[in-house]
């Protein structure tokens, strides 16, 4: 049956209406969980607030396990969904750059939008920075065009690269995430005790 739009269950005309509705749900959840504050987000790297880890990994394992059940019940054909292509070295480099940007800026693109929504100026500056960064990338693209397209492995999944079935990965991620939830609960308690002031 699913995915609905590529399979023509829902007409293409509804595409953008659905985009806005899903976006609203996405933004609401992010803001309501506290992702609109850079201090909350940066806390994950300093141990005083693990909200990023909790929300992110809960979402990840729910979506992963949910997809497997959707596939089993026949609502969704896993082979029909879009798989992010893998470019090995550019992706590692990009991730490293993003990691530094995350610690410096205290946001990631999606969360900065929700920060703007409730009037955070640092979120606004982060988004302007995003714009400038992508603009700079586009202008300088000829310089690293070869690197950008290097290491192309195609739309490869974990199952194809390892030969293991998908549920193994779902279980592994779930176990690691649940262990991290319990571990960080104690870390957070200790770190917060030593903090003088922490205003959200």
């Amino acid at each position, binding site marked *: 049956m699913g*995915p609905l739009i590529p399979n023509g269950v829902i007409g293409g005309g509804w595409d953008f209406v659905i985009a806005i509705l899903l976006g609203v749900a*996405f933004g609401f959840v992010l803001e*309501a969980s506290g992702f609109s504050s850079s201090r909350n987000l940066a806390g994950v790297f300093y141990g005083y607030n693990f909200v990023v880890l909790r929300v992110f990994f809960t979402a990840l394992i729910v979506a992963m396990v949910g997809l497997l059940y959707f596939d089993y019940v026949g609502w969704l054909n896993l082979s029909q969904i879009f798989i992010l292509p893998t470019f090995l070295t550019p992706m590692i480099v990009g991730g490293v750059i*993003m990691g530094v940007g995350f610690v410096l800026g205290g946001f990631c693109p999606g969360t900065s939008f929700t920060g703007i929504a409730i009037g955070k100026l640092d979120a606004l500056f982060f988004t302007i920075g995003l714009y400038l960064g992508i603009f700079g990338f586009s202008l300088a693209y000829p310089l690293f065009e070869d690197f950008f397209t290097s290491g192309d492995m195609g739309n490869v999944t974990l199952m194809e690269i390892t030969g293991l079935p998908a549920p193994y990965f779902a279980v592994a991620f779930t176990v690691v995430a649940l262990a991290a939830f319990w571990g960080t609960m104690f870390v957070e308690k200790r770190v917060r005790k030593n903090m003088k002031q922490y205003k959200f």
Partner: protein
Amino acid sequence: MNLEKDTIQQPKYINPYLGGVLLGLVVLATVFITGRGLGASGAVKSAVVTTSNTIAPKATEANHYMSQFISDDHSPMYTWLVFESLGLLLGGVLSGIVFGRIKKFRIDKGPRISNRKRLILALIGGALFGLGSQFGRGCTSGAALSGTATFALGGVIVMFAIFGTGYAVAYFFRKYWI
């Protein structure tokens, strides 16, 4: 289990695990309906291409990167991710209204850093994130969350690279946050 101090100071956020389950369901619904995941940096990219195309159409056409996203029938803004990001902003406003968090403009920062410095760092951080998201084929929501949830190898690589680097460099920037 919270200390008294925390309960007074903490604004009303929903339980992070509830938020996580809801976010997971949003990702699931997105994949179920559209066959692909969420995203955010793609909308900014569309904005970049649009402005560039308006100011200097010739140069944009000549640029090997931006020319991929130009189409003759419609503006580069007319993409799924732009509409989704508009919704994202709307959703943030909605939640801000519901939980009473929409106030006058303000800045979040660590206790040992000036406002000016915080804004400059946010700008630099944003620029780095923008640059990195192009190499990584997506940001935290597009590549790390949606990519990993769909078992894509690239998503896992981006996720570990972002968080791994974050922890590796956090020590050097600690005075900005704690």
